[in-house]
């Protein structure tokens, strides 16, 4: 009886209402966000990731207005943002840090202006917070392709990412150029943002790219297990967020972000308890 009730509550959202594409989208997001997030954390790229996410908003909005896939618009938006940051950083009076802040704020403002203007079609506001329930087949296919590319690239680069993150100064002596590895990682982050932004929106995307990895870091001691745990946390939190959104009637993207934050708080507790147990065991 209880089993039947639980089964029914698990199945109900998919039979009535929620598009099944949402769950594939959330799984793809979790796999990419969890694995890549581990490198984002250890390369101190959390802030850069957030900046890039904000900066690609105008491209995404314009793509939605023109009716082309928003991944394409996002890619153009990222290229424009990178170019603008490079140009602004060249101005002698403006430092690199300031250049990033100015360009990103300007682009986020421009994107919000476009998205919230009275004569833009209704629904564009959701680009700010994402619309995981509204992904099309094309969006999903593009996301799937990018996800495969990101995971294959991470597998190929694993040893190099590990070396540069661990010992950047001596990487060259071991046959690895840190600049090339940095660039590759940034390109992967950009690709992941393009996939994640349509599901979670510009303001919440960082949750899935940083949160699950931060959870995993608290409870694991090796990079590969950390990546596996982070991907698992991200997928479970994503699905949990969809249920939360269905039953509590909250926005899907925000619900996923909330579940990830909750998972992080739990992971911190588990990690602290684990360290205490180990300390007692070795004492």
């Amino acid at each position, binding site marked *: 009886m209880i089993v039947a009730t639980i089964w029914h509550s698990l199945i109900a959202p998919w039979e009535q209402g929620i598009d099944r594409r949402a769950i594939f989208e959330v799984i793809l997001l979790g796999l990419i966000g969890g694995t890549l997030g581990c490198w984002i954390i250890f390369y101190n790229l959390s802030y850069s990731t957030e900046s890039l996410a904000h900066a690609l908003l105008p491209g995404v909005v314009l793509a939605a207005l023109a009716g082309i896939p928003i991944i394409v618009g996002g890619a153009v938006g990222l290229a424009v943002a990178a170019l603008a940051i490079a140009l602004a950083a060249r101005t002698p009076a403006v430092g690199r840090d300031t250049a990033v802040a100015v360009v990103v704020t300007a682009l986020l403002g421009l994107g919000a202006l476009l998205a919230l203007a009275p004569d833009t079609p209704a629904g564009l506001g959701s680009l700010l917070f994402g619309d995981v329930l509204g992904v099309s087949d094309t969006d999903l296919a593009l996301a799937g392709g990018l996800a495969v590319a990101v995971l294959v690239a991470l597998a190929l680069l694993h040893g190099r990412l590990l070396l540069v993150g661990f010992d950047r100064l001596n990487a060259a002596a071991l046959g*690895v150029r840190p600049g090339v590895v940095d660039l590759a990682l940034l390109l992967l982050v950009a690709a992941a943002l393009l996939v994640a932004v349509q599901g979670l929106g510009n303001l919440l995307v960082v949750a899935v790219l940083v949160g699950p990895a931060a959870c995993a870091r608290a409870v694991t001691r090796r990079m590969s297990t950390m990546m596996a745990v982070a991907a698992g946390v991200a997928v479970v939190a994503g699905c949990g967020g969809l249920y939360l959104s269905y039953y509590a009637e909250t926005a899907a993207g925000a619900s996923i972000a909330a579940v990830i934050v909750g998972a992080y708080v739990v992971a911190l507790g588990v990690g602290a308890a684990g360290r205490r147990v180990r300390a007692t065991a070795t004492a």
Partner: protein
Amino acid sequence: MSDAPLLAVDGLCAGYGGPPVLRDVSFGATAGQRIAVLGPNGGGKTTLFRTLLGELRPATGTLTRPARIGVVPQTERSRLDFPVSALDVALMGTLSTLPWWRRPGRADRKRARAALADVGLADRADRTFGDLSGGQRQRVLVARALVQDAPVLLLDEPYVGLDTPSVALLDELLARLAAQGRALLIATHDVDQARGWERVLCLNRRQVAFGAPADVLTRETLEATYGAEIVELPGERCVLPPHHHEHGHDHDHGAA
């Protein structure tokens, strides 16, 4: 063991684009030699190492070096929060021996474990790098250079921060590596230790001296190397001024 030099440097000047920070360096290293590289901080030891590694182009002079040179950095500068095991770190030495699309395989893992066994850490292969003692971390970094299979190793102040048992273990390890036919360049501030090695290279923005310890480690040479700051204690011990030991505190935790 042949006497052909593994490393030959002739009339080398090097720097970072501006005027050279290191001039007139000429020396050779043959298999089986431990070469102490002495000099004050800022005397050009790091510049020499970066040039030997090919990261800096010599301004003038010639450099003949093997295809691979191993590097053993100071363990105090390594990231202790990074989620890697001793084996993971040793495996990093395989990257320069593999094409970019290949991941380390079973044979590479075996080689990395053998290198860890070589440095006396067979039972610590699966421990987290940051949890090891300073001496053990130093030996893991030596194992990484061994996996790289380099005939020449550059060691940057490997004794800094080690406790006495760790120093003895590292001494024994370096003697063994040299006996296996490698040449080791060891940056150090410890003149006493250098007396026991095969060659000494003194740098102070130029090459002050190079040769056997008995010929090089004289009062005049050391004063030219470090300035007239040498404190001499009875019994022929040379002790350097305190600021040369600024990293010399004992940071070692746990057993060696």
